[in-house]
């Protein structure tokens, strides 16, 4: 059987289905005893929600709170400065993913470094580093690795190839983070979140099991949902049903790929190369225990943070004083409440973390809805 790509998403963008879910949710929402705030943890969901105008389909008593799950937004200035400094080394090609190159640190962004002569490249797949390394044997390729559980196995896979093939000119600067730890931080801080929409891609790798404790221990329902508009609407409907039926459970909307246990092979791959870091600083949120990964000691010869430790600063850098990204990421404020939103802080000149990537909440508000009310 031949599958065309549009067969994979057509049904999940079907207008009749969207309208039917909008009606169902509105009717169910009448039975809610109090309003609910749903946090979509992942920036991919924020993007879908804003791009497809989903808040316009929901009743007044259901609100979104935009979570911290944008892998580019959460990288603190200190670590962007590391990338900047590494890229400025004469014999280095710094490679990273997508719009990481746009984000300003205290010295500028990687785009600025490139304008000053640094060799900075972006790839779609980390494995593309192999080609860059073999085409440039005299250079050191440093992969500035970012992302949640979804992208970590790709970095692990690159490292595995590097180790097995004895490649001597690829190194790693690791900035991988994990979702449950930051969610824990958010519920511990007693924010406004009543339920979570969990990112499906993360759970394709990690399984839905990583969210078990949230309904059980923290009394917040979690629905793991896909990224298409119909997925999001169905996810919301499932959350609303839990509230009106008095349930508090972990459910999966994205059943077409998510299992309870996830992709064991990918998890093992990650475990063989990475350990949990004690602390990882998130831009806007500060230090969160056990939320980051680092290379295992036995692979430190590939670790750019070890090799270049003499030139990589460790001092802490404060976020901009007018920026309220921390509050936005905690669900305490909306982008429109920020005094610099859309004025000093825009996608072309971002100040706060939520404006830097297309997946950030402020950026999505600016791009799709900064005046449509």
């Amino acid at each position, binding site marked *: 059987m031949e599958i*065309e*790509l*549009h067969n994979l*998403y057509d049904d999940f963008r079907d*207008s009749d289905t*969207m*309208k039917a879910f*909008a009606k169902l949710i509105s009717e169910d929402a009448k039975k809610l005893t109090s309003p609910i705030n749903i946090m979509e943890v992942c920036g*991919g969901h924020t993007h879908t929600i*804003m*791009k*497809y*105008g*989903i808040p*316009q*389909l929901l009743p007044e008593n259901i609100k979104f709170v935009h979570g911290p799950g944008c*892998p*580019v937004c959460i990288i603190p200035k200190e670590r962007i400065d590391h990338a900047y400094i590494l890229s400025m080394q004469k014999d280095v090609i710094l490679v990273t*993913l*997508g*719009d*990481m*190159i*746009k984000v300003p640190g205290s010295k500028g962004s990687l*785009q*600025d470094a*490139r*304008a*000053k002569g640094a060799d900075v*490249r*972006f*790839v*779609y*797949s980390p494995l*593309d580093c192999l*080609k*860059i390394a073999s085409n440039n044997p005299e250079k050191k390729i440093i992969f500035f690795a*970012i*992302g*949640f559980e*979804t*992208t970590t196995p790709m970095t692990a896979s690159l490292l595995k190839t590097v180790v097995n093939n004895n490649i001597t000119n690829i190194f790693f600067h690791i900035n991988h983070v994990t979702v449950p730890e930051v969610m824990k931080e958010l519920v511990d801080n007693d924010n406004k979140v009543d339920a979570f929409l969990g990112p499906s*891609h993360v759970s394709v790798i990690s399984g839905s099991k990583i969210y078990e404790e949230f309904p059980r221990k923290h009394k917040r329902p979690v629905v793991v949902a896909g990224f298409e508009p119909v997925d999001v609407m169905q996810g919301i409907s499932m959350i609303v049903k839990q509230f009106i039926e008095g349930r508090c459970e972990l459910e999966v909307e994205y059943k077409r790929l998510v299992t309870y246990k996830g992709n064991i092979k990918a998890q093992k791959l990650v475990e063989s190369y990475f350990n949990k870091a004690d602390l990882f600083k998130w831009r806007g949120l500060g230090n969160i225990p056990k939320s980051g990964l680092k290379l295992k000691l036995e692979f430190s010869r590939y670790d750019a943070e070890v090799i270049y430790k003499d030139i990589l600063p460790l001092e802490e850098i404060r976020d901009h004083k007018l920026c309220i990204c921390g509050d936005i990421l905690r669900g305490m404020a909306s982008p429109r409440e920020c005094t610099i939103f859309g004025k000093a802080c825009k*996608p*072309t000149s971002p100040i706060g973390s939520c404006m830097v990537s*297309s*997946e950030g909440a402020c950026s999505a508000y600016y*791009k*799709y*809805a*900064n*005046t*449509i009310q």
Partner: protein
Amino acid sequence: MNKYIRLAQGNGGQENNELIQKVFYKAFKNEILEKNEDAAIIHDGELAFSTDSFTVSPLFFAGADIGKLAVCGTCNDLAMMGAKPKYLTCSVVIEEGFAVSDLKSIVRSMKEELEINGAIVVGGDTKVVPKGSVDKIFINTTGIGEIIKKGISSNNITTEDLILVNRDIGCHGATIFVAREEIEMSSSLKSDCASLYPQVKALIDADIKITALRDATRGGVSAVLNEWAKQSDICIEVQELKLPISDEVRGICEILGFEPSELANEGTFVLAIKKEDATRAVEILKRFENSSKACIIAKVTHKNKQRVILNSLWGTSRFLDTPSGELLPRIC
């Protein structure tokens, strides 16, 4: 603006506009330039005058090469002002070591495309620079066209107009992106690169009431619609489903996280046509092989002036913004 030029400042979108406004318009300010059209209208409205420089990697790609691009680009800018392309200059900067056979094949493409437009090259300049000073070859073409239909302007669009596009969008941008070294993808896509004068001429000959035309090059259809919304102080409302997008372009956009309407085109143009003539214009365009998917995509309103709104099938709406930043693939 930042201290050093970034790649994003050549994107045909917000950063590009800012650079042009703050540096070039500021210095060169004059009435003709400030019209901000595809080509300048000079000599009492009788001539259109335009220039464009071409740099593309790879030089040869599915559907065209830099030579064809260099002639289409300038001739299309002239055609968009209702002009017949007549005289072009051709300047090249060539990197030491460039293959003469490649140069010949580029020039051959230019010749073929000139014939389609009925234009000739009447002057030029050739520079060779040391290896590393340019990336293989840069070409500039400058052209003069004779206006055969006066009054076409992006500053006069009203609610009496409908907005059309001549074909499916984003093919050139998608083709070039997947041809990049860092992106390992293969596709059957071809650039849409084509001369648009024959189509414009057919519309003029049929006496279609044309308000404005613009070829949707860098920044894509999104950039054109946003420029028009600002220049004519109107709101353009696009019906999402109406935008013609091929499965290949849609697929690449799904994988890499791009918007088809932000991808560059080289043979795709947007038209503002008086309502009563819109259907007839679509029929005329459809007679051309590369415009078989011509259609009406948007209406003009006063809802949010100077903005473009995209209406979904399920009744929600959002802005379609001027593209900004570099074209970067999404992360996961």
